[in-house]
């Protein structure tokens, strides 16, 4: 039987006098085991508030180390932490914040191999990850192990929050991530935050909303976002709450499930194999340049990426490449590049399909690989 000692009764007094939480709710928080996957932008406020609120057992999964560029939004860490494993630094920070709780740092990747065992040993999972493959993995592991999944996600100025796979009063489970998004976007469509940027305070807001939903579910208060998706737009300060319903074709929980165990999520998110494009290695391209071989170089990245570093190509961002197709020669070799070679391959496929180009080369590995060539 979980009980609160005198120091905890003092610390949590502002919760205890809230009739909706009270001693019962606070005791539930102390007894709870929460697994937080990712301790970055979303995980930072989420972990701080869960620890401060007195969630008794917190597991933190993160294989990454803290970098200087994280500190613009990952308020769990400070400059002295640069280079430290995130899970370890997070655990130290949370123990300092609240010595009455147990924090377990898990400095490992969350993979199909360890996901179910990890999820099984907690009561609730909070998904603060940063890529589609891990999001589907978290969802599927939670559904297969019967655990609620408190979801939050951000992109530039937009945030999403929902509660997936929650136990309903009738014993069934609420909708899950696959009911909302049956499949991820094809690679190369949406630039990552690393490429597209994110306003640092946005994960602070959205991760705090995620903490709110975790605490509501654990303490049994309010109306959690079950079967609903909350959208927040920081740019115009609007928000919406949309309904999410179970889909009969959900491969996990639909009328005829086909997924009964975890799969290869990197392959799932890579989608079906795409038609290959003609590749040009950075070394071969360097040879072209040294030989003075005539060609046109096109850069399909965004202007801000171009401003940081470029190879002297003509800037035509991916989104505008079909409109600018008439500016490209058909009687000379055209080399197309981006940061890593994914968006340029997309551009080439679109140009070949829509406009019938046959003279396009993809700079393999993009400007990153080109810059990595030995001098």
């Amino acid at each position, binding site marked *: 039987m979980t009980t609160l000692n005198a120091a905890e009764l003092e610390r949590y007094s502002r919760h205890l006098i809230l009739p909706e939480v009270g001693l019962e709710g606070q005791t539930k928080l102390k007894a709870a085991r929460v697994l937080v996957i990712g301790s970055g932008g979303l995980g930072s406020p989420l972990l701080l508030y869960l620890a401060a609120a007195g969630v008794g057992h917190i597991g933190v999964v993160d294989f990454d180390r803290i970098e200087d560029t994280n500190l613009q939004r990952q308020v769990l860490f400070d400059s002295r932490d640069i280079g430290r494993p995130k899970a370890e630094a997070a655990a130290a920070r949370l123990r300092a914040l609240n010595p009455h709780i147990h924090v377990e740092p898990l400095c490992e990747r969350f993979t199909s191999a360890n996901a179910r065992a990890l999820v099984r040993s907690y009561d609730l999972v909070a998904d603060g990850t940063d*890529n589609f493959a891990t999001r589907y993995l978290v969802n599927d592991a939670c559904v297969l192990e019967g655990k609620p999944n408190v979801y939050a996600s951000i*992109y530039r100025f937009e945030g*999403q929050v929902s509660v997936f796979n929650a136990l309903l009063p009738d014993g069934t489970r609420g909708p899950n991530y696959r009911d909302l*998004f049956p499949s991820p*976007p094809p690679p190369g469509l949406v630039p*990552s935050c*690393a490429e597209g940027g994110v306003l640092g305070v946005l994960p602070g807001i959205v991760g705090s909303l995620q903490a709110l939903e975790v605490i509501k579910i654990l303490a049994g208060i309010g109306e959690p976002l079950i079967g609903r998706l909350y959208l927040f737009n920081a740019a115009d300060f609007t928000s919406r709450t949309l*309904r999410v*319903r179970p889909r009969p074709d959900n491969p996990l929980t639909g009328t005829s499930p086909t997924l009964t165990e975890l799969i290869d999520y990197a392959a799932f998110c890579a989608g079906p194999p795409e038609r290959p494009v003609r590749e040009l290695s950075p070394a071969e391209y360097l040879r072209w340049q040294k030989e003075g071989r005539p060609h046109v170089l096109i850069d399909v990245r965004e202007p801000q990426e171009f401003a940081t570093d470029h190879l002297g190509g003509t800037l035509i961002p991916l989104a505008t490449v079909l409109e600018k197709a008439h500016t490209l020669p058909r009687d000379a070799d055209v080399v197309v590049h981006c940061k890593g070679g994914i968006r340029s391959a997309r551009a080439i496929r679109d140009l070949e399909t829509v406009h019938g180009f046959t003279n396009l080369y993809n700079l393999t590995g993009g400007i990153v690989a080109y810059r990595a060539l030995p001098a």
Partner: protein
Amino acid sequence: MPTLLIPTPLRSFTGGAATFEAPAEDVHGLLVGLATAYPALRPHLFDASGAVRTFLRIYLGDTDIEDLQGAVTALTPDAEVLIVPAIAGGNAQLP
């Protein structure tokens, strides 16, 4: 006219435009109007069969059009249609 609200990840294909209006009678007409106005967006909105890609949800008000009449859901002149994309945060895609 019915209004379509365009999410941030797709705005790079609309020259930054956040909304699109067209005198469409149903959801499909509004989406096709958008793809016609911004051709670069078409392959990201529709798959090869012409269906809306499954990483996008289309809502009329707060209701998924799949819970209404799908693509042929009728629109009133003051209708607001929302495209909700899957977003993943930091490493949304490999480079």
